[in-house]
């Protein structure tokens, strides 16, 4: 931790460098990304116009890639708040360097996830009917439905995370404001809501921040638990399982952490922030991956054990089919990506090797996507009535919208990087020695 110990001014300079005029590479990538978003929008337009039939969904597989994407993105959206809130409360100081970008990722992942319920429903133009409010139609919603719990859970999570995120941003925006000129200064000035770094502001700020961290902490656990109940509350064999809530939360943190690493490795390289995002941070994140990955692998085993132990023929059948049936390839891909591929992380050398980490976390991302795909699709294809068994593969439209969702996510992320400090300046300063006090390290020493 002592490694990241620079003069305060250098923090400002290095971190705010990301806000400078975009490079041609950035512009090119942004163009591609916006093109991808447009393509996804186009695909969705086709779906709105023609009907859900342009997707590969059918009877009996009513949920497919859209719900997979939804759960995947909600899962991705777990790391940020975990890092920023829970680790804040635990005073894990390694979080300070990464929490801002992780939190931004969370917000954008949840924003992406929120697209999918709308993309997924048959009459997207009526999706607002799921919001309960007194209305002249005298219609109400069904509070027994896990989907409605979802509406609340995800929206709550999104609002609290956003507020928490915005609050955390205030001092940093003020720092940007102080360096900005002209119109930018006015905008940042507005966004920094009059922050002047007075100690009374800091006192209130820190109290508020802690309060929000405490508020956000249970949400980290609740949102994915509720999402998992979309499945667990049903009576579909392969879904109906009490282990789903902890299993999904662990999986969410697992995938979220992997996504943070996947994003931060190129990020630190491109913006030359190697000295701020060090092997120490990645080591710590990898340990979290190891923990959650182990829980996930254990959950897989537990699911199989319970399927066997339950003596429930339908349950046993679906778990057998999941591994050896028509969807065996995604299943074993999932097992490899989530259980086998992360094993090298047990070696510190691997945890501190960025290339290896990058590859492993990509595997985890893929594996976690397929985990959701497996749970959703393979269970639905072979339920109780063998006459109604089916088969599902996604169509181009679904993959197009999925691609669009990734682009949508990266679009916000890229914009964020250019407009806001991606590393928390103030909190980075917290772990450095304050000026005029103690030993002041130089950049050279750190390296």
């Amino acid at each position: 931790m002592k490694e990241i110990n620079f003069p305060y001014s250098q923090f400002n300079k290095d971190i705010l460098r990301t806000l400078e005029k975009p490079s041609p590479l950035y512009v090119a990538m942004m163009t591609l990304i916006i093109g991808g978003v447009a393509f996804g929008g186009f695909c969705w337009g086709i779906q709105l116009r023609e009907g859900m039939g342009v997707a590969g969904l059918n009877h009996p597989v009513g949920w497919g890639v859209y719900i997979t994407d939804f759960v995947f993105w909600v899962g991705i959206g777990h790391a940020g708040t975990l890092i920023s809130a829970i680790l804040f409360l635990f005073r894990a100081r390694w979080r300070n360097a990464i929490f801002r970008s992780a939190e931004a990722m969370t917000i954008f992942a949840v924003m992406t996830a929120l697209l999918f319920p709308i993309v997924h429903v048959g009459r997207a133009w009526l999706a607002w009917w799921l919001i309960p409010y007194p209305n002249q139609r005298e219609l109400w919603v069904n509070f027994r439905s896990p989907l409605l719990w979802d509406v609340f859970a995800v929206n709550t999570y999104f609002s609290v995370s956003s507020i928490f995120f915005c609050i955390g941003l205030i001092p940093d925006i003020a720092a940007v404001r102080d360096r900005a000129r002209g119109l930018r200064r006015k905008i940042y000035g507005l966004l920094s809501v009059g922050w002047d770094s007075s100690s009374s502001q800091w006192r209130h700020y820190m109290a508020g921040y802690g309060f929000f961290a405490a508020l956000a902490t249970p949400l980290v656990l609740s949102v994915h638990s509720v999402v998992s109940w979309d499945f667990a509350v049903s009576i579909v064999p392969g879904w109906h399982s009490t282990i789903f809530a902890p299993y999904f939360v662990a999986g969410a943190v697992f995938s979220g952490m992997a996504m943070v690493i996947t994003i931060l490795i190129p990020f630190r390289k491109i913006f030359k922030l190697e000295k701020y995002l060090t092997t120490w941070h990645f080591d710590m994140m990898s340990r979290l991956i190891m923990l959650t990955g182990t829980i996930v692998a254990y959950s897989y085993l537990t699911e199989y054990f319970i399927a066997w132990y339950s003596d429930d023929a339908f349950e046993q059948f679906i778990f057998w089919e999941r591994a050896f049936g028509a969807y065996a390839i995604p299943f074993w891909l999932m097992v490899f990506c989530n259980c086998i591929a992360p094993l090298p992380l047990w070696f510190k050398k691997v945890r501190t090797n960025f290339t290896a980490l990058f590859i492993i976390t990509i595997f985890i991302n893929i594996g976690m996507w397929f985990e959701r795909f497996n749970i959703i699709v393979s269970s639905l294809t072979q339920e109780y009535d063998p006459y109604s068994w089916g088969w599902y593969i996604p169509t181009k439209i679904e993959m197009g919208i999925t691609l669009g969702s990734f682009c949508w996510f990266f679009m916000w992320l890229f914009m964020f990087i250019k407009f806001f400090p991606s590393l928390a300046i103030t909190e980075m300063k917290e772990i450095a020695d304050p000026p005029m006090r103690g030993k002041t390290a130089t950049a050279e020493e750190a390296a």
Partner: protein
Amino acid sequence: MSNKINRRDFLAVMGLAGAGAATMSCSDPKSFEEKWHPWVEPVNNELPYVPRYFATTTPESDGVGLHVKVINGRASKIEGNPEHPINRGRLTARQQSVIQELYGLERVRRPLHNGKEITWKQARELMTEKLASTQSMAALTGPLSGAVHEFWTEFVGRFGNGTLVQYDTFSDSDMIAAGEKAFGRSEIPYFSLKGCDTVVSLGAQFLETWGDVVSNSRDYAAAREVDHGKRIHHYQVEARMSGTGASADEVLYAKPGSETLIALALLKEVSAHGSKLSAAEKGVVDGLTGNFSVEDAATAAGVSAEKIKHLAEALHNAESALVLPAERWVLGRFAAQHYTAVLLLNKALGAIGKHVNYSASKSITQVPAHKNVVDLMESMKAGNIDLLVVKDANPVYSLPSKLNAGEAFDKAGFVVAFADTMNETVAKADLVFPATHALESWGEVHGHKGIEMLQQPVMRPRWEVFQAEDQLIGFIKGADESAALPDQFRDYLKQSWTSRHGGGDKEWREALKLGGVYNMAETGENLPVSGNVSASFFSGIESLTVNDAALVIVTSARYGDGRAANRGWMHELPDQMTGVTWDSWVEMSYDYAEKNNISYGDIVSLQVNGVTVEAPAVLSETQSGDIISVQTGLGHTGLSEANNRGFNAFDLLSGELSDAGTFVAQPVQAKITKAGRSQKVATIHLPGLGDKLNTPQTVVGEKRQLDRTDPHFERNIWQAVAIDALVDHGDGHGGHGGGHHGQPVAEGFPEHVETDFYPDRSKDPVVVGRDETFYTPYKWEMAIDLNKCTGCGSCVTACYAENNLPVVGRDQVVKGREMAWIRVNRYLGYAKDEAGKTEKIYVAFLPMMCQQCANAPCESVCPSLATYHSKEGLNAMVYNRCVGTRYCANNCSYKVRRFNWFTWEWPGDTNWALNPAVSARQKGVMEKCTFCAQRLRDAKDYAKDQGRLVEDGEAVVACQQACPSEAISFGNFSDHNSKVYKLAHDKRAYRALDAHIVTKPGVSYLKRVTLGHGHA
């Protein structure tokens, strides 16, 4: 200047826009074509949206009576005529589908001359001219009865010594010949299964296509009811298990072509071991069967002699046995001999009079011989016909291609067709007069002796078209002003009818209301064996079996002779055994396919009698050995594009005629080659076929990818009980137990037995604060007797008609998106035979629709409350409230919810048949069966008007209404005297999956009763 719009401007703009919209919509010429009139003067007795039922029939309805439901002047659904002795209100799927033709894409709307539209005036002038100059006219029609026959005879008599030729693709003159040989009666008897305790069908698919399917199904189902520990025994002899064979207790897989030998062997055995023949008759019979033996028959059939002896024994031991003949397609030139043998066999069994009823026969005049149409084609080819008038016959399609009917039509002088619907023959006509559809026409159809049905128009013609006979009257009067004919055929019909039946206007109206007169004799006399038959008649009979790739044609229950190939409902109704929709296919066994390296969906070319056709191979577990089967009815070229599909099985016939004048068909060796391509087959029966090309999902570990999903019924969705288990209780009602098998529910889930899983309905917001409770006075429930269900699919089509279900098309069926609210699940079961060696395959059918669970998985998961539990026990579905999350469908354990993947279209005018009582659904909305909520509402309204509750049997749902075997019962479960309540407490009753997931379904299934011990 302000750009705000003020009120005055707003009104001006809106007025202009409104006027514009109105003008634009009026400028569409099509909307005027329909000749809309305001309902200033209401039609007599017509109330908007109040259905009226008209009794009528059509020539293609197999001699059953129809009740056509007419709403707002439009025919919207066909139900059976409950007064009719054959169908008693029930119909097959195909009989219901006629309404789709009424509004079909192929309707002819304008007179056509050489394919070009001309005016009515031009057409009439042309016709008048041709009629005036004709020297040798002929008229070719479908089978005609009564006044219609009289009229056409008169018509052809008036112009150039005309001849009248009737043509019916499936008429069988050999049966007439056999009647003549056996009993001296040139008639086709009425075969009745009523009270039958053993039926041996040598191949007749009497539950699908053979004979009077509806009465067969009804009597068969009634005979399956367990009575004092007994029920009918059904043996089916066939190589390809048919839908009828699927209901049989035993299927004898005999090689096709051996049926005549088997019949004679059975006759010999039965006669030898004491029969109901008199001594003299026995002498005659023994003289006939002397040269035949069980062993020869067994060798030819490729089965053991014991099996045939076992059959003979079963017949011998039966109290009331009936033997049905083979399908005409395998009998070849021995059809008359086979039928004679079967008639004699029935005589020996004492079935003549009781089950084979010559007092309710069809006379020779009702059975036109194919020879007549062949002769007509010959004389057309020879140029001997200068004017041909065609109506209701499609020889260009259905005559064997060897006969080249197309060429005959080209060579005929001038062909005039009176047609309601375009087809191959109409397309060949030089002049086409649009005619009214059968449902818009007057006519008369005779069925079995004593059944004379009237055909009346149920609605005004959809287009500006006229009845063929009315037009002909015009031509007759044009040629001869003094002709003593009424101006309209209706009056002609009435005159003819009243002259035959007596009575006046009142009786005529009474007959119209009833749909005709029904004086069919229930039983006939036990005719003595005539002396017409001699041993020489049976000499030369040999096996017609083919050892390799024996091609057998099967009559399609859906398309029939091809007339139903223009109807979406028939395309989308899965074939009973293979589940194939929309296409022709070549069905073969897995063994044969494996031997020839053919996989499911491979396109194979089939070469027979010099004709080659191509179709995808469909591998079937219910087809034995080297048999290849194809079905009739598709392969049209003259319909609209969507309906011209598959190949024409009639093309494969040799075109030879039997002595009686019927086309001969027998198993022939087909040359099968792989075309090197493959195709997705739109089958509904094989799970997981969807987008994964033709590879059914199966139980893991099987070497072959067979159709083996839940092969031992461990999932308990379909259940059977051995008859032994019911015997102790006498009549099979009351008591507990039954042959339950599979998962031991009580042991596995003791808590389920103890716990009442019903949600507490007293707290439900639907009733809280109101003076109402759940399930009073009604809780609608259904009971389906699996022992009676034959899997015919009539219920499916009835549901399509009643509930405005869309036809989604082949490509969507392939993707698993058919919209049927009720489907007939077909399961294959595998059991070891007695010897424990070979596996016996049996087929189980289970009609599956929304189970209206009292503890429904779908209701709780819907976020928008679009589906909820109604006070009457229905899973109500509010389409307008549905957002389309599809969670309900995922959570439905029975997979009966159907999602609108698109806003489905009704091509042509088929939307005219929509039921206004059922709302149309938009894309993105879930839909499903709600026990015909609209029918329940009608019944309740009717009862309410009379100040009482709905009585048992008063509320009838569409599937129940149509079911030919009367397997479906429906009623109020809260009324403990109702039939459905009693059936739900029958010892055979179970509720699908309820023991496992406690959904408390509102549908009780009654276990199928199998013979002997254990389960089927």
